[in-house]
């Protein structure tokens, strides 16, 4: 008799516990509009998707309005990169006053092997490179993921001399 009683008690408990869980599901079913966590993609993505400012999407070499960048071709970023995603190709040029100078020729970035570890940007003494929060980077062929970051015709931004700073 007692075991039968216990059995019934257990069955009732089981149903109550399942009903409690289902109640939660029901509540979400009713209030789905208020707690909607799905974001629309790719439609309306410019308005609905918020990518965080710091999100590591790709390495960029910012240029200013005069088509000048800050990279001195010191190759520290290339050394810091753990998987050789960066190739700095420099060239020798002769300045107007006859001095030989090493400047950046090509800043080659292999997005296909980059792991977004931030070590190149951390290593750069000139703060020449940055992480951009772009995320739609896929292409059909991985060979297309090799970019040259410095724009054609761009050159090193001259540091303001002491005189210019004072004026």
């Amino acid at each position, binding site marked *: 008799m007692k075991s039968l009683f216990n059995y019934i008690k257990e069955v009732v408990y*089981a149903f109550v516990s399942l009903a409690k869980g289902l*109640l939660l599901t029901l509540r979400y079913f009713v209030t789905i509009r208020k707690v909607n966590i799905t974001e629309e993609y790719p439609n309306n993505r410019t308005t609905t998707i918020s990518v965080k400012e710091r999100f590591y999407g790709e390495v960029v070499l910012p240029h200013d309005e005069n088509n000048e960048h800050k990279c001195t071709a010191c190759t520290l970023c290339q050394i810091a990169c753990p998987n050789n995603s960066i190739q700095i190709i420099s060239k020798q040029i002769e300045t107007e006053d006859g001095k030989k100078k090493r400047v950046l020729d090509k800043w080659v970035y292999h997005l296909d092997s980059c792991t977004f570890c931030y070590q190149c940007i951390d290593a750069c003494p000139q703060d020449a490179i940055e992480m951009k929060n772009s995320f739609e980077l896929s292409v059909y062929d991985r060979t297309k993921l090799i970019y040259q970051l410095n724009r054609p015709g761009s050159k090193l931004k001259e540091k303001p001399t002491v005189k210019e700073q004072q004026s």
Partner: protein
Amino acid sequence: MENQPTTPSPTELRTEEFVVNIGPQHPATHGVLRIEATLDGETVKDILPHLGYIHRGIEKMTESMPYKQSIYLTSRMDYLSAHINNHACSLAIENALGIEVSARAKAIRIIMDELQRLTSHELWWGSCAMDIGAVTPFFLGFRDRERILEIFEANTGNRLTMNYIIPGGVMRDVLPSFVTDVKELLKKIKGYRHEYDQLITGNFIFQHRTQGVGYLSKEQAISLACSGPVARASGVSCDVRKHYPYDGYEKLDFNEVIDYGCDNWARYLVHMEEMNQSIHIIEQLLDNFPTGEYRTKIKGIIKLPEGEYYQRVETARGELGVYIVADGSNKPYRMKFRTPSFSNLGAVKPTTVGLKIADLMANMSTIDLVVPDIDR
């Protein structure tokens, strides 16, 4: 005719053992792990795990990389404890160099560690319930984990493999809104906690699938070198944060969660309570979040003095040990990782043998294996 086979009578029905390969591609193993299960009917007779499907040679790779670079690889071992793995490596290097990091860096590190533990346990809660047959918790677990990942994304730039904790402190300072963000997040998470209990902890089916199933005695847990929630659910006190505190855990007030049930249910309860403890730890740090430097500048090329260094930390799965043999150059001579999942994998066999095949999945999910952590 002579050779005609005779139908055996039911009394002399001959049975034999049957070997089933579970994996390497199986949703319940959460990764590429192959388990060779010897079955007698539905009863498991023997378990033989086969490893190596996701072996990337991380230990060997570190030997050809400068110390600073090799840290980012450790995020890829136990990807659900990426911050904590980075932390272990950074601590080992800092100890060798004798660097003291600032109070702010320590606080950021511990908050990140504990948030990481929360994400890991929330994912574990969802996938554990899914292995046992419930699908809704998986989505709820992911929903709450997503909130924390957003904090990671906003502050560290990455969501899974952060490379944020580095020797000397952290890579970048947290956002000015970090403290308020985390406070808001904790409020939200605490509001959701009762749903976990309502849906799964009180669930009759779940309780019967876990209670008394997957027994791992204290002696077995110790002899298999289990750690983390698996060992603590068998009554072994092994929390590294309590026994060998690092980076200011000694100043914080939290309990080591120990359960003496030794079964799947006990492991479940330990995980759930650890989430509460993590929230409690973060709250203490947020109340007086230190200001100051987030990073102690160290030289560009790190050279460890010759010798051997060992550092252990508590990841979401147990004790992670980093053992470095340095020869004075900028690369380690040998770097060895003692990963928690590898030792905990040994617990699958003693918990499962003698039970039904369906219990194997329940046991594996409460033991909480991360396969890349087993193989490295």
